[in-house]
């Protein structure tokens, strides 16, 4: 009999301890969402690129853009000055705009008429580059050409901005499988300097 009450008492004490622990965990969980909420918000709705704001007038920095090499298989790096921006998103925007604006006599891997619609950067360092449909519609096709188009964008950002470690190309605001049927664009791609031939490129 005594042993049984002892058994029951111990059980009740364990129950009380468990309840205390349970409440502690629940309270802890309820206190975290507020702080946790901030992190997805900042990574999911980062500052979007704006047209001309964010750059400092007069001040420029040297960057390396990419054009198609004479062999048609690689990218040559081309030095250009772009306006200095105080933050990654604006600087990335300036770089992509400069990449899209490269002109003859340079041959670029960017299909005719391609415009930058928006650019986002997550906390993780993934940049989302939203391009107009011309990047796909006016693409000549073929794995080789498609790789050069994709890595013109990916490497232009990752080579110039160490804060950006991955780049995913979107078309008209949408995630796409590929631009022309070959290169998998369903996830951010990392820097690949095998396509780049000239100075300014170094393996990570």
């Amino acid at each position, binding site marked *: *009999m005594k*042993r*049984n*009450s002892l*058994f*029951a008492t111990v*059980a*009740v004490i*364990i*129950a009380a301890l*468990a*309840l205390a622990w*349970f409440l502690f*965990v629940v309270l*802890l*969980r309820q206190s*975290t*969402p507020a*702080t*946790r909420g*901030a*992190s*997805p918000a900042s*990574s*999911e709705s980062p500052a979007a690129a704006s047209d001309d704001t964010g750059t400092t007038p007069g001040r420029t920095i040297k960057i390396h853009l990419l054009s*198609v090499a*004479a*062999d*048609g*298989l690689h990218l040559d790096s081309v030095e250009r000055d772009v306006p200095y921006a105080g933050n990654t998103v604006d600087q990335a925007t300036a770089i992509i705009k400069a990449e899209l604006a490269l002109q003859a006599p340079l*041959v*670029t*891997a960017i299909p005719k008429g391609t415009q930058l619609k928006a650019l986002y950067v*997550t*906390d*993780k360092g993934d940049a989302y580059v939203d391009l107009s449909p011309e990047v796909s519609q006016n693409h*000549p*096709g*073929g*794995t*080789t*050409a498609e*790789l*050069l188009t994709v890595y013109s964008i990916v490497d232009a950002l990752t080579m110039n901005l160490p804060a950006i470690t*991955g780049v995913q190309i979107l078309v008209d605001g949408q995630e796409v*499988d*590929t631009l022309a*049927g*070959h*290169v*998998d*664009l*369903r*996830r*951010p*791609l*990392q820097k*690949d300097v095998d396509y780049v031939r000239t100075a300014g490129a170094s393996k990570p």
Partner: protein
Amino acid sequence: MLPVTSRRRGVLALTVVLLLLTWRSVAGQGTIFTIISPAGRRSLAATAVHGHEMFALNDLAAAFQLNVQADTLGAITISYKGKTIILTPDQNLASVNGRIVSLATAPTRSNQQWFVPVELVNQALAPIYGERLELRADSHLILEGNVTAPRAPEPAPTPAAPAAPVQPAPARPAPSQPAAPATPPPSLGTPQPTISTIVIDPGHGGSDKGVQGPHGTLEKDITMAVARRLKCAIEGRLGIRVLLSRDGAETLSADARAALANNTKADLFISLHATASFRTDTSGAEIFSLGLDRDAAQASATASSSAQQLPVTGGGSRQVEIVPWQFAQTRFVDQSKTLADLIEQQFKGHVPLDGRAITQAPLRVLVGANMPAVLVEMGYLSNADQENELGTGNFQNAIVQALYGAIVQFRDTLNTRAKATAQGGGAR
């Protein structure tokens, strides 16, 4: 003997404890995962259900603010910021924002609660979560958002089969195999042919024309013409079954092409294309196999495959291996590279190669192929001379001959390896 009333009291108290703790067992059958996020650490308990480490769905939902709803038909919908995962009880396939993903094991009900495999975090939750979410099973960590954690010494991911030597020395076993036993092994009967089905994928088709040459030649027509010739050559001379992913004008998705190869248990997948350059004088063929960047390699290392008993038409069932679709090719990256090397060798002197000849790249159609797979760009349609060449029977036959030669060599490589394995004591 204990009096019934006090025993009942004890049992009641214990039940309270058990209810409070649920399966959060202090007896140690469960494990605690630590969630590390920029906001701090929290815990999530896992428990072994039918021998598999699982999270109670309610706990997982509480930990990541997921909304869970069970419908009358039994499906469970997990939603987060407008994206959904749909689970079906006792089925190890989930729909993750419309994509079918195979889970490590099926969700199961125990003690009035739903349990899901811990791998669900990587396989289904991470893709819809919006920010980084990574479960490291061996170190019992879940990394959320922008945090870093030292990588515990995890067991290396299952190594892919060793890349076969390009030219196997006939008299000696492959270098990675143990020495042959002194006495010959008993005869194993007729050896299984290592390649019995090949899927040839004529690139593009239907409304997807692919590259268009300056004189109007379409990539989809060239790929079809070569695919038909290759099928004839292989079937006629090797007796291997060859299936084309399309017959004529249909438009197929990349996944549909790989699915045909997976569903027919093909041993090889060869996708044929003709390419383009932004420079009109670029010419030559180039052979591609899948390349993985650091993220993709890491993601595939955490994915696991599982075997399942599935019913087959005509009665009975058979063991089917379920491999996460997006990682199917990762196990064959080395073998695919070997095949690409063999094709390059066979092309030399017969089909001109471009300045790179061979490349590993993240190519969409190869990702889902659950067998050695390559993509062959046969030449540049953007180059007017090559466009003419690609349209001729002679050039197409040269390509077919070279691919045929590479397939024979690849088969011999597999046979040599299989023989060496058998002689080495039947390992694997």
